[in-house]
């Protein structure tokens, strides 16, 4: 290759780098703010904890320990003692290990509830946005109805139909997000439909399928990702609320923060920490996702582009 052509290639590369896409630009701006970094750190630590907790938990979280059980009475739940950092829970299990492992189950519920909500919502919103017309009207009436129930009530009416299992909770919580994601994606796609680059692609004779998947969807996905981050926070809180109402997972042995909090409600006068620690964990994680989502939203907002 001649020197000249290398220079040219370099120049093209640098041009490509200079013209960052909207998404990259937004991402860069997001991580300039300390709030976003704090959110990212919290979320990152939570995910790491969720992955490694089964290996670092000092005791087996799914087995009662005789030394804890022997001191367990209706009015006394043993506090910290040697080998058991936070003492026992109401069943003679190691509370500290359960709290650690709880990160995994909580992340599981949050992620799957959000993923299912995003998937169904995006299918509905995508169809409505891509086709318009009566498909749009019909699907949007459907989401209107889902939005016409207060969110928790929607989850309650679904959870009350199904047997109390972890998947019931996940599905019930996922349904809260469906209309939100559907409306969001539809709105973004309709805005795309009348944009110049879609018009150009149509004029060039690009197939509708290609336009939808290559031009409209990728440009509409930003708000959905932001909303998904925020939904992760509310999904974890809503799952806890369902457990609190007795519509949660019927497997009381499972170490999940919402379930642990829901099951500790009768024990506040005996050992308040059984409720406080899972609750604080939920609050910190929810805060982390909210901080991250909010700062992403702010940087995606064209008004804030600098």
């Amino acid at each position, binding site marked *: 290759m001649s020197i000249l052509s290398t220079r040219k290639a370099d120049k093209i590369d640098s041009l490509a780098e200079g013209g960052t896409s909207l998404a990259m630009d937004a991402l860069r701006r997001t991580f300039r703010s300390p709030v976003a970094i704090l959110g990212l750190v919290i979320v990152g630590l939570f995910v790491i904890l969720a992955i490694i907790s089964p290996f670092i938990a000092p005791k087996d979280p799914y087995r009662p320990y005789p030394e804890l059980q022997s001191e367990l009475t209706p009015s006394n739940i043993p506090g910290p003692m040697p080998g058991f950092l936070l003492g026992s829970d109401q069943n003679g299990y190691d509370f500290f290990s359960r709290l650690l492992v709880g990160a995994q189950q909580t992340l599981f519920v949050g992620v799957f509830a959000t993923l299912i909500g995003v998937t169904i919502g995006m299918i509905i919103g995508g169809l409505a946005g891509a086709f318009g017309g009566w498909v749009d009207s019909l699907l949007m*009436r459907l989401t*209107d*109805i889902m939005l*016409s*129930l*207060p*969110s*928790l*009530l929607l989850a*309650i*009416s679904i959870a*009350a*139909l199904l047997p109390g299992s972890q998947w019931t909770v996940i599905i019930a919580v996922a349904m809260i997000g469906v209309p939100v994601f559907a409306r969001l994606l539809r709105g973004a796609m309709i805005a795309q439909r009348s944009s110049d680059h879609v018009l150009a692609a149509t004029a060039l004779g690009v197939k509708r399928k290609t336009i939808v998947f290559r031009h409209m969807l990728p440009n509409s996905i930003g708000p959905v990702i932001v909303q998904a981050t925020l939904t992760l*926070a509310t999904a974890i*809180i809503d799952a*806890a*609320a369902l457990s*609190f*109402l*007795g*519509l949660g997972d019927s497997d009381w042995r499972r170490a999940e923060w919402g379930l642990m*909090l829901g099951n500790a*409600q009768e024990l*506040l*006068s005996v050992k*308040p920490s059984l*409720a406080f620690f899972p*609750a604080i964990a*939920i*609050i*910190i994680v*929810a*805060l982390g996702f*909210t*901080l991250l989502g*909010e700062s992403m939203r702010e940087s995606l907002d064209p008004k804030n582009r600098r």
Partner: protein
Amino acid sequence: MLRFTVRRLLQAVPTLFVLSILVFAWLRMLPGGPATALLGDKATPERVAAMNAVLGLDDPIFVQYFRFLGRVLTGDFGSSLITGDPVMEEVSWAFPATLELSAAAMFLAVLFGIPMGYIAARFRGRFLDNATVVTTLVGVAVPVFFLGFLLKYIFTQEMSLLPPSGRQDVLIDATRITGIATLDGLLTGEFDATWDAMLHLILPSVALASIPFAVIVRITRASVLDVQGEDFVRTANSKGLTTQIVRKRHVLRNALLPVSTTIGLQTGLLMSGAVLTEKVFAWGGLGTLLEQAIQQRDYPRLQGLILLFATVFVLVNLLVDISYAIIDPRVRVR
């Protein structure tokens, strides 16, 4: 204005109609069918068959639906499995309690939310602003029922300052007129009853107010910041109006438009929070009814409550839209 109101009312009708179909289908999706759901799991096959005949489950499905719709429209939701009382009666008995709690919570949220949001915007970027923003973010992250627990733990268990649960002390013999405990005391002149009811109201309403409060603060702040940069504010300033008049007439009045919508929407959403708060404080309102219905799988009551909550929610949204059209004439033409 009238045309807008009528159009908006007509839009609500199909929503409620489809909702009624879904709730009707919902009871039919139950494991074992509605007869088992109505009679409980231990019903004998003969009783289930008899119930099916009584319910008219042998008729075509659309005949069944219109019969259901006819009953619902006349306010007949059947009887609760727990108490045997008509659902409508239970609901009208419990409704004032929820109304009282929600109104108190909304009052607190607005009373503190708007000034805090306004102050945060005035001191944008300063410590006070950052502290407010962090507070509201934490406020949304705290589960309502856990906040209830926390308040209850601190103020009743540790400090014994306030009553832990219920709406009124059992020793107080209050006369029921409206069912709103604080109001009844005033109406009958039993001021000790009002005082006692207010003490009971403090903790639950603070817990329930947390989320609308956080949302109102954030919207007020954002909206004031928006309006502050508008041309008409600059014009007002440059023509020599005092800062006070500009803030009051030009900034605050325009900034409160989106806030009013938010307040309406949050009023609807309060119902979710009320279910949780009522459980923590054994409040005895609609939330308590719902919670019992869930525990006991009392489907007629659950069905009635879901329809009722949804109807109230749709109506509240309708009122929000109409009030918004009154405040902002531009909305009407859209």
